[in-house]
């Protein structure tokens, strides 16, 4: 209870601030509307409710966003082009594919770096440099380029997610695979363990906590990568497309709904990785 109460307080404060901000930001347009309708001296409470019920508000009120989310997920057929559940699924599948590829690539690179001196010295600086390139910013272009050579749909988006998510995994896994101490490696030598056994019985288990910590970061940026990659291909669908069409048509409620769905997806994905982490750590006897 001690942990929930402060969070709830802050959330309530944010909600209250949001409603107040909605009144303030939507007021100018509402005044124009009321002026046209020859309504004068609207009582404040009624005026507030009007600002919370506009069609294309500058800032939609929270309940408008949530009812839009409800209508666009539960209220529509899953196959409908306007169903947010469908778009969320499109984004989710690209995210997951990219995340799996990125984690695999990251682990392979980390193993190579830990076991080969030349790989460490030549790859590591470039892996770090690769992340200062704003790949997200050029993601739509990469998607178009890959589309030109026949790669369309899921794969280009997943490649962007992969590029983003391999980095934390490499860095974390290199740290993790190097975490066994000299005394533990010496013990393996006294057992006459071959490199294969040293890897599976010592290095890999020692690196698992780092792997999960990196995967939590990785899956969050995988989702961001998938959403941004969708911005270039309005026909393909996905949450990014909902953001884009919403912004072109001034459908603010649609933008906020897509944004909240994306946030919810991120939260669920990170929570799933966290749950897997706790399960594996408990089996390996790590104390939380």
């Amino acid at each position, binding site marked *: 209870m001690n942990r929930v109460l402060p969070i709830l307080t802050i959330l309530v404060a944010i909600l209250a601030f949001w409603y107040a901000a909605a009144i303030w930001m939507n007021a100018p347009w509402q005044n124009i509307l009321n002026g046209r309708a020859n309504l004068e001296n609207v009582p404040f409470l009624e005026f507030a409710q009007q600002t919370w019920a506009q069609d294309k508000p500058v800032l939609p009120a929270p309940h408008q966003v949530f009812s839009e989310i409800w209508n666009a997920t539960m209220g529509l057929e899953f196959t409908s082009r306007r169903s947010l559940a469908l778009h969320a699924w499109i984004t989710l599948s690209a995210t997951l594919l990219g995340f799996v590829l990125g984690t695999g690539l990251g682990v392979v690179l980390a193993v190579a770096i830990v076991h080969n001196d030349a790989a460490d010295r030549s790859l590591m600086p470039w892996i770090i440099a690769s992340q200062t390139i704003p790949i997200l910013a050029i993601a739509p272009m990469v998607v178009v380029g890959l589309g030109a050579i026949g790669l369309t749909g899921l794969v280009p988006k997943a490649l962007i997610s992969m590029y983003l998510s391999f980095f934390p995994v490499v860095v974390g896994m290199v740290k993790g695979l190097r975490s066994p101490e000299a005394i533990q490696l010496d013990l393996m030598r006294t057992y006459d363990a071959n490199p294969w056994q040293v890897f599976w019985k010592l290095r890999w288990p020692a690196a698992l906590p780092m792997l999960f910590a990196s995967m939590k970061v990785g899956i*969050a940026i995988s989702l961001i990568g998938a959403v941004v990659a969708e911005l270039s291909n309005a026909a393909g669908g996905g949450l990014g497309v909902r953001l884009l069409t919403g912004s072109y048509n001034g459908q603010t409620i649609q933008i906020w709904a897509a944004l909240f769905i994306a946030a919810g997806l991120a939260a669920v994905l990170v929570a799933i990785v966290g749950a897997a982490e706790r399960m594996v750590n408990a089996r390996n006897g790590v104390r939380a």
Partner: protein
Amino acid sequence: MKSGLTLLQAVLAVVAGGTALFGLVGAAISADAELLLTLAFGFGALTLARFVWRPISFWLDGVAAALIALTLVWALPRGTVMPGHYWFGMVSAWAFAWLFVDQLSAAIRKGTVPRQAMGLLIPAVFGVSLLVMWEIVTRGANVPPVLLPAPSAIGAQLANSAPILWADFVQTFVKSVIPGYIIGCLAGLVVAIAVDRSPFLKAGLLPIGNFMSALPIIGIAPIMVMWFGFDWQSKAAVVVAMTFFPMLVNTVAGLNAASSIERDLMRTYAANYWQTLLKLRLPAAGPFIFNALKINSTLALIGAIVAEFFGTPVVGMGFRISTGVGRLAIDLVWAEIAVAAVAGSAFYGVIALIERGVTFWHPSVRGGRA
């Protein structure tokens, strides 16, 4: 082993020398052999002597890699597919480069080569090999420039359209990224210090801040464009929102980094809250704050460029990238990407340098690796 190589190195040496030999044979039987390239192939094939005669210095492998790569790029035909035996040259140059790097890093480990200068050589060799392969594949296989332009074409475009690139850089980096970055980081810092005095607020804000850092905040870009208009203000607003939460979370964590024994010492000096904050807790939080600054430096550039996809005046890096794709001016797009990469790396590098100067006392800096 007679050649003094490990198994991996021996395999690489065979591949490198062998493909050079094939290249030599190919040059001999084909009509249009370039003289310089043929000589380089001959030099590469000679290194096979290491297996029968005596071990050779790894510097010779480096020279072979450079010779074959240089002559190959020089001999590349324009506008047609290159002759088949040139591909042997590419594989050979690549294998020589790898062999060279592998032996060099072994020599650094043994201490026979100075670490300082040569440590930089290895990543440089890797980067240059990548560029050379890119050049050879795109020009050698005659890849349409619309798909992937050669590095030389990108370089030429970079020089030709410097004024456009500079205007875009000013619009995106100087006007959007820098103000947004400064405002977002300062706001995160100030809020973190303010929140830090109240455990209740801290307990409430920290989990929410952590949660917000994982969210695709970049999605607010269309909203910001609606609120603040097409010009740089909306981009700066996106950057502020993206940089705020990493800074908040890291600073709150950093302010707890000073140990209680150090705080007790400040108490014995009768230091008040502000003195403790300025002389102990903020410096102790330095590594955390710089961590956030480094994360934010890349986030800020990404935020500004992506926000430009949702509407801009007719200048800016994101605008140029999205319209360049539409007009199939892909080399201009790549030039813009190169500018963004250099700007991003330089931004990161400057902050890392400041970090080394400010947090010189921290073990991670004293150890010599930032």
